[in-house]
């Protein structure tokens, strides 16, 4: 029989390091607190980069505009021509904000997806969300099929949204019916990608030349067709989704240790996964509906965030969102600067500019 210990082991005290001088305690805690401080600084830096790239994005364009004119037009000051005011309010600002919001939405969707599916390759596009959205858009552009009674300008985005959102609901229904964890969801998603790509190809096959051209441009992803309504809808979606996922940051972090362990810690994994997928599908479907296919951000922004701040979701979620917003904002800037006088589709630029940055980060990390 073991004698009862006179003093319980240290961890049974609510404040185990309470004994001993204050300096010893502080020294013991310092490395972790330093790390937390470093991460806060990194997240703040990402926010800083985002603000700078957003401002540069707003003042850059075919019509030269300095920061003076920008402020003048914003606040209705003297010395600003009416055309500058119109350019700012109806072109530059909505486009720059769309870039930021779509980047944020796709990055948040990708970050949550990679965590709940425990797969670093997961992104809204891996699971066929964009393929489904493309098919919806193809139906509208090529066959003119869509919800009756809609103004023609809303036909494509509404169709894309319905198909993208529907694809995730179908995915969840399949997964719920067959049971199963993240592997099966990903396999369903891949099946969905191939199915919708085949359907898109079929639609393209019967398309007229002009409809085909219009559709191909849609698939390249462009932020030049969005206005304040789209900005408001996207802003609302991000404003609802981000706090909701930040509220479950500890559960998401715990899920990184595997489903069994998380469940044993009391995390309701099935519900967490379902609600997160709903958030993901809303964000991704809206992004696809308004700007077409911009695939790269949702995959890469979480990876960059992970390299910078790790997977404590207190920092990982905001860092992903800010990274995604900054990447797409910089891509929007680059799309105006890369070829003078030509506005490249942003979906192409994201990949061209983003991939070298991503490679540099991975290689730097390996050798570092």
């Amino acid at each position, binding site marked *: 029989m073991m004698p009862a210990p006179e003093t319980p082991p240290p*961890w049974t005290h609510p404040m*185990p390091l309470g004994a001993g001088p204050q300096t010893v305690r502080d020294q013991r805690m310092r490395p972790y607190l330093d790390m937390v401080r470093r991460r806060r600084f990194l997240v703040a830096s990402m926010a800083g980069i985002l603000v700078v790239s957003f401002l540069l994005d707003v003042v850059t364009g075919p019509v030269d505009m300095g920061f003076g004119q920008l402020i003048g037009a914003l606040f209705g000051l003297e010395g600003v021509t009416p055309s500058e005011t119109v350019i700012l309010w109806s072109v530059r600002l909505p486009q720059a904000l769309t870039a930021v919001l779509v980047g944020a939405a796709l990055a948040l969707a990708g970050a949550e997806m990679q965590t709940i599916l425990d797969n670093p390759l997961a992104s809204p596009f891996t699971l066929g969300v964009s393929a489904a959205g493309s098919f919806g858009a193809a139906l509208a552009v090529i066959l003119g099929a869509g919800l009756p009674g809609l103004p023609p300008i809303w036909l494509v985005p509404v169709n894309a949204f319905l198909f993208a959102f529907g694809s995730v609901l179908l995915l969840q229904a399949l997964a719920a019916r067959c049971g199963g964890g993240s592997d099966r969801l990903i396999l369903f998603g891949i099946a969905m990608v191939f199915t919708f790509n085949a359907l898109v190809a079929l639609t393209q096959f019967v398309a007229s030349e002009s409809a085909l051209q219009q559709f191909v441009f849609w698939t390249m992803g462009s932020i030049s067709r969005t206005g304040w309504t789209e900005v408001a809808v996207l802003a609302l979606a991000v404003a609802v989704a981000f706090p909701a996922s930040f509220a479950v940051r*500890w559960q998401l*972090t715990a899920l990184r*240790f*595997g489903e069994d362990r998380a469940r*044993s810690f*009391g995390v309701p994994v099935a519900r967490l996964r379902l609600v997160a997928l709903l958030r993901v599908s809303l964000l991704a479907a809206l992004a696809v509906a308004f700007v077409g296919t911009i695939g790269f951000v949702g995959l890469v922004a979480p990876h960059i965030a992970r390299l910078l701040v*790790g997977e404590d979701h207190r920092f990982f979620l905001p860092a992903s969102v800010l990274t995604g917003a900054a990447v797409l904002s910089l891509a929007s800037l680059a799309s105006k600067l890369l070829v003078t006088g030509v506005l490249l589709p942003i979906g192409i630029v994201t990949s061209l500019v983003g991939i070298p940055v991503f490679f540099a980060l991975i290689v730097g990390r390996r050798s570092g």
Partner: protein
Amino acid sequence: MGKALEISRLCVGYPRRQVIDDLSLPALACGTITAVVGPNAAGKTTLLRALAGLLPAGGEARYDGGNILKLKPAQRARLVTYMPQALPQGVALTVIEAVMTALRVSSAGRDASGRTIQACAGAVLDRLGIGHLEMSAIDELSGGQRQLVSLAQAIVRRPAILLLDEPTSALDPAHQIGVMAAVKDHVASDGAVAMVVLHDLNLALRWADTVVLLTEGGVRAVGRAEDALTSAVLSDAYGVVARVEQSSLGRPYVLFDRIVGP
């Protein structure tokens, strides 16, 4: 003796295969360690996962007047912590973050201050001898160190029922003893019940108050380690000729000689 964990008529299975059928054990008293031993595929892990609520199970597992199998997940998580065999690969978190998360996500940890959580996590890591690793990335640890981190995640939650699946399988002798001593400390000071799946019968003989020997047919033997693990029982359960001898310190230990031939 005070509280105890009483398992009776437990049935667990997967859709096409019943793994545990009508399993009953004598009451497992608080403050004791129960080793679950047996050949592969005997249902050791299944037993622990069922008690942790990770598999649907029939029967009863009574603790403190309630049936833990019938508790809601959140209530059960307050009582029971299950530690799977391994930490997953590719997790970009540090050791201290891993342990703090285990506490943060619990109902007790939700209201505690960050400093208290950090202090508790640090103390558990110190106790397990890995305090110096707290800022290391989990992915850079050795298998044994990862196992200790995994144990720290379980112990920091101070569960009343601690279920450990092979906590010593990747550890060198010093760490094996360290782990079992830490488990012993935890059950003694908190009055917890620990059920530990072990492959090393000598660890079971050395540390367990009760041994449960499972085979595919169910419980083959249960009781004090030196009573339950006899040469005849072991030879029969494992299909290997086994001897139980006395060491020079007077402790029993098990030797396996050869596979039982035709």
